[in-house]
């Protein structure tokens, strides 16, 4: 007897521009890549060798970046970081481009492929900026599907050309300083972010 041997963990990403008058524009609607970091988190969980507290295995952060155009044709399951994540040079002001920005940012470590802490592009800091995904932005849509709604308001990430996004598990190693790992990734067509619109990412993962 032959049994089906996989759960095809898949993801789907929709990106909307939402204008102040309520108009919505869907400008991206495609599958994404679940990265091997998801397997790292699951392996740590099921082998009992990671964090004790279960909330450390939740997907609670995202990053936006400006280097995804280099990866559009070549990205894959092995990605462990965004090509050029926001905040490495200018800090939180990349996300919170105005004092009215409502994207909550936390700063902690990013897990490299071997479990270590990855240095940023400056090669000096192990600390990266992560945008927090709130409880009410996580929707169970099916027994085996969940949707994350990432909200980038009109006052955030402005005057940047956004083209990549990633989801991160909170801290599967259970380190005192959080070390998040990339679990899903997608480069997308350039978006010149302005204060004319908000961005909403609807990211669905199916198990």
């Amino acid at each position, binding site marked *: 007897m032959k049994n089906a041997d*996989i759960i095809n963990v898949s993801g789907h990403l929709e990106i909307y521009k939402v204008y102040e008058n309520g108009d919505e524009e869907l400008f991206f609607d495609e599958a994404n890549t679940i990265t091997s970091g998801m397997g*790292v988190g699951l392996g740590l969980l099921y082998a009992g060798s990671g964090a004790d507290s279960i909330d450390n295995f939740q997907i609670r952060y995202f990053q936006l970046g400006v280097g995804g155009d280099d990866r559009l044709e070549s990205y894959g399951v092995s990605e462990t970081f965004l090509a050029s994540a926001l905040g490495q040079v200018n800090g939180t002001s990349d996300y919170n481009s105005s004092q009215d920005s409502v994207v909550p940012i936390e700063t902690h470590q990013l897990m490299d492929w071997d479990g270590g802490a990855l240095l940023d592009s400056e090669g000096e800091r192990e600390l990266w900026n992560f945008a927090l995904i709130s409880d009410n932005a996580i929707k169970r849509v099916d027994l085996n599907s969940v949707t994350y709604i990432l909200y980038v308001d009109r006052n955030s990430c402005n005057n940047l050309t956004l083209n990549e996004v990633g989801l991160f598990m909170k801290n599967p190693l259970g380190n005192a300083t959080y070390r998040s790992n990339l679990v899903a990734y997608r480069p997308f067509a350039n978006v010149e972010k302005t204060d004319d619109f908000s961005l909403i990412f609807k990211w669905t993962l199916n198990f």
Partner: protein
Amino acid sequence: MISGHITICKVYSDGTKETVLDRANMIVAGLGSSFLDIQKGVGSTVAADYAPAYFQIGTGAPSFNAVDTSGFWYQVCAPLSWQQYGEDTDLTITERYRGFYASSVIDGIYQELEQTKAPLSSVVFSGSDGYFANIAKGSVTKNFLDSFEAQIVLDENTANGLALTEVGLFAKNPKGFYLDTPVMMAYRSFTALNKTSDFSLVINWSIGFLGLDSNVDNHYSTGDIPNS
């Protein structure tokens, strides 16, 4: 993407070893739904409750066409009874409440979901009693960063005289109930294997992102990864 691989070996008392199965297995929906319970914060708050802690051996086979299976499958078809494991078995056998998802969407009758999905609003978590063999904590480990491995041993005094045809791996208690309520994570049926006292059966199970990332797969972790 998340895949499983299982090997079953006969190991004789003189040390000789014979591999009788070396195939993929079926990863079932309970693994994914338990992980999504974590994401929503509705399951157990203890990480160990999601790890494999029990298994069942059986003598049945699913009636569905397993080639087309969706993985919505929560049970070993004919699990061994307490007596069938054998009086002198080295295994610790415990009675537990097997967890599964049930719905009345099929023919209007409330029943365990088998090979079918149902709308989330119509699904409830339920269970039934059964006998489970414990997996020792040290028998679950990691050889690669993005997978885990579990080893099950049926010693020479276990399940003798039976034609074994299926095995299921169960998470400990992902719903976090007062008593362990195991939920199936992976399943494999196989050609009947007549167990005798001449040999032990060693079952090795690997589950994860197997062979997808050469970076990670080339990094043998021996259970540890950098922690500082």
